[in-house]
């Protein structure tokens, strides 16, 4: 039932481990890929935003890696990281080997331009529109980059941390004691 269930030693030797993925990527890109870490079994790494397509293309084309399924694409806003305020996070899946990985590119918030992956994955089209809608990431080359869940007239990007959920000037409620102040 499981594709790639190791039933002989050869397959076990060839299994696509996180170490092997990291090795393949470093062989190809050298210092251009960095920040490798493994959390909860999932390999995660970074690249400069200029190289996102090169890395995605390589992960897709390489016979051994074969990360051809884009599971998820979203953004994260880190307001305290100057010059790296926005992260675009790709979750990729090699369905045959059943291995996942997480790939991030960071961008500053003043010029949040990142190349679109929608040419490579049709599924990225709406996910990038959603990411644009909520974080304002400008996906360069996207065929139809407009808001998707919010109204077209909206003039801000609501998931950025600068827009708090509740009115912070409220005086009738002291949040200092309870979690996020």
């Amino acid at each position: 039932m499981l594709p790639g269930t190791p039933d002989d030693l050869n397959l076990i030797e060839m299994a696509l481990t996180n170490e092997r993925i990291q090795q393949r990527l470093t062989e190809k890109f050298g210092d251009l890929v960095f920040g490798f870490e493994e959390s909860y079994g999932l390999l995660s790494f970074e690249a400069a935003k200029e190289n996102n397509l090169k890395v995605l293309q390589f992960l897709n084309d390489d016979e051994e890696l074969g990360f051809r399924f884009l599971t998820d694409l979203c953004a994260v806003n880190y307001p305290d990281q100057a010059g790296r305020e926005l992260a675009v996070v790709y979750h990729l899946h090699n369905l045959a080997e059943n291995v996942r990985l997480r790939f991030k590119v960071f961008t500053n918030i003043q010029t949040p331009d990142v190349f679109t992956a929608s040419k490579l994955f049709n599924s990225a089209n709406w996910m990038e529109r959603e990411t644009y809608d909520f974080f304002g990431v400008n996906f360069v080359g996207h065929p139809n980059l407009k808001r998707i869940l919010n109204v077209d007239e909206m003039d801000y990007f609501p998931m950025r941390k600068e827009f708090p959920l509740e009115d912070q000037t409220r005086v009738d409620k002291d949040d200092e004691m309870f979690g996020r102040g």
Partner: protein
Amino acid sequence: MTEHHQHIKLPEGSIEKQTTTLNVGPTHPATHGVFQNIMELDGERIVSTESTVGYIHRAFEKIAERRPLYQITPLTDRLNYCSSPINNMGWHLTCEKLLNVKTPKRVDYLRVIIMELARIADHLICNSIVGVDTGAYTGFLYVMQYRELIYEIYEEVCGSRLTTNIGRIGGFERNFSNTAFTKLEKFLKEYPSVLKEFENLFTRNRIFMDRTMGTGAISAERAMNYGFTGPNLRAAGVDYDVRVHAPYSSYEDFDFSIPVGKTGDNYDRFLVRNEEMWQSLGIIQQAYQKIQEFKGEEAEVYHANVPEYYLPKKEDVYTKMEALIWHFKIIMGEVDMPKGEVYHSVEGANGELGFYLISDGGRAPFRLHFRRPCFIYYQAYPELVTGGMLSDAIVTMSSLNLIAGEMDA
């Protein structure tokens, strides 16, 4: 005639235009949900279509950034509300992964029962709605009473029916009552013959086959590129199922098979869902059997021992100091979670339902992103229906099982 007398102002070029523009939705009975398709029709043939979503966007990801973990569960209810328990369990499992909570086997099996019941309820609605859209209303009304029975089981376990908020981090809020098990037995006894009858109505029905075969088809390669998961991907011939690829909640203890289709058309999607209901039924039977094998104290376990996150019993809160402290800490949001990033997914009724949770060590997630299968595969809709008939596009829409709640988050 002067311009003064012209009451209706037509858009430029609308007289010369050779096609008809038709708005399907946002509140059309045939869309079974709030979303819109602006279709260009040549007669009844679709030339192009543009989908608009977002009418019921409720900013769940934003709201989640201010809520402690246990208060996010009700948000997940409202994603795919046809199978809320799967969403709830997916969320609990994500939290448990972050918090490193190991659940007892009995909890896993109880969860499997609830999740598979939810899958049956969801597939039942989807398949019977495909029937309704092809002109066969009977099946829909007939199976409704068994969805009702499933909802009664939910009700016994958690007190609500549609938006269930079922379970807690580490297990369930209470043990299953005897009534819950009696109802489950009734379901296991009666449902197979009902599903058989339902099958007889549709599977070899000439009209149904003619309406669904060859319509809304997608190849395996295109489906994967569009990020299809779940029954819709399996109907195209890819045997990807999260329950098998990344077993959670002890799915590895069960014997079941993954049905796959070939053509990825509406008929194959129907057949795959239908077979999945049989498989789910088998899983529930196995799980129920395993649960009955627990004896003594083990047979009473319904949650893991995680006092930091699992609300203590009310009577303990009033009588025991420690329980009172934990109750206060949990309710007041004084329990911080560990730092970390997790991605966890479950096999929702529509496909891979993923939760990407980033914690910075506070009480609420720093960021929470839902991978909503429906939102991702709906973008293939224009490709599926262009060139086909409008009436087939309606069937395709229901056979994809588009749930507005899941699409819009």
